[in-house]
C-alpha cells in the first residue's frame, strides 16, 4: 500500500509517441535511371539514322503518311460507316440544327416571327435580374448594347450561343466525370493523362480531324471548344469534392449515409463554390476558342477577328476582340453572382468549405474588378427584398420583357440594331470610327518606334 503513495520523484516529462506515417518503399532511383539509360541507348542503336534527317518542304515520313492514310480512310468511311456516319453524323446534325435554331431566333436580324435585339436585351436583363441581381443586369445590358453599337450584334450573340451550348454540354459530361474521378483513384489516374492531352494538344493539331468527323460549322466549333474547355471543369470538380473536409465526411459516415447521400447532401453542397469556379473557368476556356472555331466556320466574333487578321486591320480585330473580352467578363460576373445568391443565408458563402479551396479562385479572379458580383467587394450584401417580394417584382417585370420581345418581332427598328454611326459621341463607339481610332494609335506608335 505505502509503496504506491511514496513521494513520487519529480514527474519526468512523458515522451509523446507521435503517430508515424507508413514509410514509402525505397525508390531505387539509381536503378530506374539505369533502366531508362539502357532503353535510350538501345533505341539509339537500333533507330540511328532512320527518319531523323531534316525534311524538305513537302517531304513526309512514314508516320506522317500513316496519319494521312488514316485521314483518307475516315473520309471514305465517313460516307456510310455506322459510327462515322451514323453516330458522329447524327450528333453533328443535331448540334448544327440546335445552334441554327437559336441563331434564327436570337441573333439573326430577320424581322418576322423572330425576336429582335430589343427583345433579346429585355429577356436577358430579366433572366439576369432573376438569377443574379441588379448589378449583373446593368452589366449584361451594357455589354449587349456595346455589341449592338459596335455592329457586332449577330456575331456577338452567335459567340454567346456557341459558348453557352458548349458549356452546358461540358457540365453534363464534366460533372459526372469529376465525381467519378473523385471516387475512384483508378478512374482518376486513367483520365488525368487524357485531360492533359486535351488541354495541351495545340488546337490546330486536332482542328482537321475533328472537322473531318463533324464537318465544318457550329457542330465542329462546339466539339473543338469542348476538347479545350472540359478539362478545367473536370479537374476542379474532382478537386472540390476531394477537398471537402474529412471531418464532415467522417461525421456523415458515422451517421450511416449511403454513397449517394454523402454525395448529394455533404460533398456536392460543400464543393459547390469550387464547382462554380470550375464552370467559370470552363466558360473562359470556351470563349478563348472563339477565334479558332472561326477557322472551321464556327459562327461568332472569331470571324471578324480572323478576317481582320488577314487584312492586318488592328482596329477591326480589337473591336471584335473587345467584344469577346466583355462577353467573358459578363459571363464570369453573372455566374459568380448567381451562385452567391443561391448560397444559404446570402452573405455567408465565404465561410462554406475550407479556405484552401479558394486559392485558385483568388488568384484568377480576385484581381479583376469585382464590381458586378453582387457583393461588389464591400464584404456585405446590400439590402435585399424578401424572397416573396422578389418573386412579385420579377413577375411584374416579366410583362414589359415579354412586351419588348413581342414588339421586337413587329418593328424593324427593334429587330435590327440601328446604325448609330451618325449619332454624335455614341457614333464614335461604332465599329468603323472605333477601329479607325485604334488603327491611328497603332500607326502612330509604329511610326514613332521605327522613326
Amino acid at each position, binding site marked *: *500500500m*505505502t509503496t*504506491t*503513495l511514496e*513521494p*513520487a520523484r519529480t*514527474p*519526468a516529462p*512523458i515522451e*509523446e*509517441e*507521435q*503517430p*508515424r*506515417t*507508413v*514509410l514509402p*518503399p525505397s525508390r531505387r532511383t539509381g536503378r530506374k535511371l539505369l533502366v531508362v539509360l539502357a532503353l535510350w541507348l538501345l533505341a539509339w542503336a537500333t533507330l540511328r539514322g532512320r527518319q531523323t534527317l531534316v525534311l524538305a518542304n513537302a517531304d513526309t515520313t512514314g508516320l506522317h503518311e500513316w496519319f494521312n492514310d488514316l485521314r483518307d480512310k475516315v473520309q471514305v468511311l465517313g460516307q456510310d460507316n455506322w459510327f462515322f456516319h451514323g453516330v458522329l453524323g447524327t450528333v453533328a446534325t443535331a448540334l448544327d440544327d440546335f445552334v441554327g435554331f437559336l441563331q434564327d431566333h436570337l441573333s439573326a436580324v430577320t424581322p418576322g416571327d423572330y425576336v429582335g435585339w430589343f427583345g433579346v436585351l429585355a429577356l436577358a436583363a430579366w433572366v439576369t435580374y432573376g438569377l443574379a441581381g441588379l448589378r449583373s443586369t446593368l452589366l449584361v445590358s451594357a455589354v449587349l448594347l456595346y455589341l449592338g453599337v459596335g455592329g457586332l450584334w449577330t456575331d456577338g450573340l452567335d459567340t454567346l450561343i456557341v459558348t453557352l451550348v458548349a458549356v452546358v454540354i461540358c457540365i453534363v459530361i464534366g460533372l459526372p466525370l469529376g465525381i467519378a474521378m473523385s471516387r475512384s483513384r483508378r478512374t482518376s489516374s486513367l483520365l488525368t493523362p487524357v485531360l492533359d492531352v486535351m488541354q495541351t494538344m495545340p488546337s490546330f493539331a486536332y482542328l482537321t480531324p475533328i472537322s473531318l468527323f463533324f464537318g465544318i460549322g457550329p457542330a465542329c466549333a462546339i466539339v473543338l471548344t469542348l476538347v479545350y474547355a472540359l478539362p478545367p471543369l473536370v479537374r476542379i470538380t474532382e478537386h472540390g469534392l476531394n477537398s471537402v*473536409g474529412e*471531418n*464532415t465526411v*467522417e*461525421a*456523415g*459516415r*458515422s*451517421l*450511416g*449515409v*449511403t454513397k449517394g*447521400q454523402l454525395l448529394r*447532401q*455533404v460533398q456536392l*453542397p*460543400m464543393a*459547390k463554390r469550387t464547382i462554380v469556379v470550375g464552370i467559370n473557368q470552363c466558360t473562359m476556356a470556351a470563349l478563348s476558342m472563339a477565334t479558332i472555331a472561326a477557322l472551321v466556320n464556327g459562327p461568332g466574333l472569331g470571324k471578324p477577328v480572323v478576317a481582320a487578321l488577314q487584312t492586318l486591320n488592328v482596329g477591326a480585330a480589337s473591336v471584335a476582340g473587345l467584344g469577346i473580352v466583355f462577353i467573358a467578363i459578363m459571363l464570369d460576373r453573372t455566374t459568380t453572382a448567381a451562385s452567391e445568391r443561391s*448560397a*444559404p*443565408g446570402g452573405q*455567408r458563402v465565404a*465561410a*462554406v*468549405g475550407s479556405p484552401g479551396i479558394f486559392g485558385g479562385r483568388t488568384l484568377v479572379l480576385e484581381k479583376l474588378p469585382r464590381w458586378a458580383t453582387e457583393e461588389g467587394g464591400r464584404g456585405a450584401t446590400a439590402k435585399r427584398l424578401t424572397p416573396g417580394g422578389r418573386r412579385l417584382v420579377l413577375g411584374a417585370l416579366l410583362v414589359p420583357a415579354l412586351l419588348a420581345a413581342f414588339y421586337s418581332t413587329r418593328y424593324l427598328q427593334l429587330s435590327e440594331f440601328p446604325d448609330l454611326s451618325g449619332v454624335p459621341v455614341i457614333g464614335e463607339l461604332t465599329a468603323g470610327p472605333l477601329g479607325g481610332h485604334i488603327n491611328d494609335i497603332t500607326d502612330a506608335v509604329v511610326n514613332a518606334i521605327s522613326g
Partner: protein
Amino acid sequence: MTDLAVDRATTPETDPSSSALCVRGLWKVFGPNAEKLVGTPDLELSRQELQAKSGHVIGVRDVSFDVAPGEVFVVMGLSGSGKSTLVRLITRLIEPTAGTVLLGGDDLTAMGEEQLREIRRRKVSMVFQHFGLLPHRKVIDNIAFGLEVRGEDKGARRGRAQEMVDLVGLSGYEQNYPDQLSGGMQQRVGLARALAGDPAVMMFDEPFSALDPLIRRDMQKEVIRLHHEVGKTMVFITHDLDEALKLGDRILIMRDGAIVQVGAPDEIIGAPADEYVRDFTAEVPKSHVLTLRWVMRQPASADEGAGAPALPDTTVVREAARAVLAADGPVRVVDSSGTVVGVVDDEDILRVVVVEHHDDSSPAAGS
C-alpha cells in the same frame, strides 16, 4: 492492493451478452496486406521494429474490454497512442485488421455494408473533436441530419431535433448556421446530433480538446448532466487525465496501441500498473481521487476505533479528512454491507494530503 487492480484489468465482465459493448482481440495494422500479418510472430515486435522491418505500423494492438450498459468508459492516452483509431475501429469507420466487436450482442465485425449502416443510423453515434457539422445547413437541420439519412419525414425529424436543441441548451439558435456559433456551441450541435437518433452507445472522440478551458469545463458538466438525464452508455476518448477522472466510471489507459491498465479512477491512481501510468498520474491531487479503501489499515485489535463514527470505504479521502482529524482516535471503515474492513487515523489521511503538498513545488496545488 495491486492484485485488485490486475484482477479488474484482465478479466472484464466475461458475459458479452450483458455488456453494451464488448471488444475482443482488436488489432489495427496500417500498411499493405496487413491482414496477412495476423498470427505471425511479426506482430510480437514493437511498433518501431515492425515499421523498420516491413513498413507496417501498429495502430491498435490486441485490445479487449467490455463496457457495461449505462457506464461512462474513458479511453485515455497521449497522441499517437491509438485511442482515436480504437474508437473508429469499433464502428468500422476504420476497418479492423483482426478482432471482434459486439454491440448489444450484435457482431459488428461480421456485418455487411447494409447492416452496418443500419447500426450506425440507430444504435451508435459519435461526437467528433472538430465537430464535423455541415456548414450549409442550419443548426436544426444539422441536428436532424441523422434522422433525415435514415428516412424520417420532415415533421417528425424537426420535432425530435427541436427536443434535442432544448436538451443541449441551444434554444434560440435553431436558425443559425454553424459558423455563426462559438466552438462550444458548435460542439453542442454535435452532441445534439449524436443524441437525436437515440442510440444505445455514444462515442466521443476528444470532443472538447479544441475548446478553451472554461468552455471545456462547462461541456464536461453538460456531459455529466446528459448522462444523468438520458443514461446512455458512453465511450469517451481523451488525452486529458483530469477529464478522464472527472467523467469516467472506468478508465482504459493506452500506450503504443496497447492497453496499459483498465480500472476505476481510484485504482488508476492508487495502484498504477507500471511506471508509465505512475508518471502520468503523478500530478493528480490524490486526496481528490483516492477513497478510504486505499489508505486504511487492518485494525490492530478488534475494538480499535469502536468509539468513533464509521465511514464507508468509498468515501474520497478529501471528504473524510475533517471527520477523521476531528475524531480522537482511529476511525472505522465499513464496506457496503456494513462490515468493518479497516481503520484510518490522522496519519493515514495526512500522508495522502501532506505528501502532495510536499511533492508539488507550488503550495497552492494539491488540496
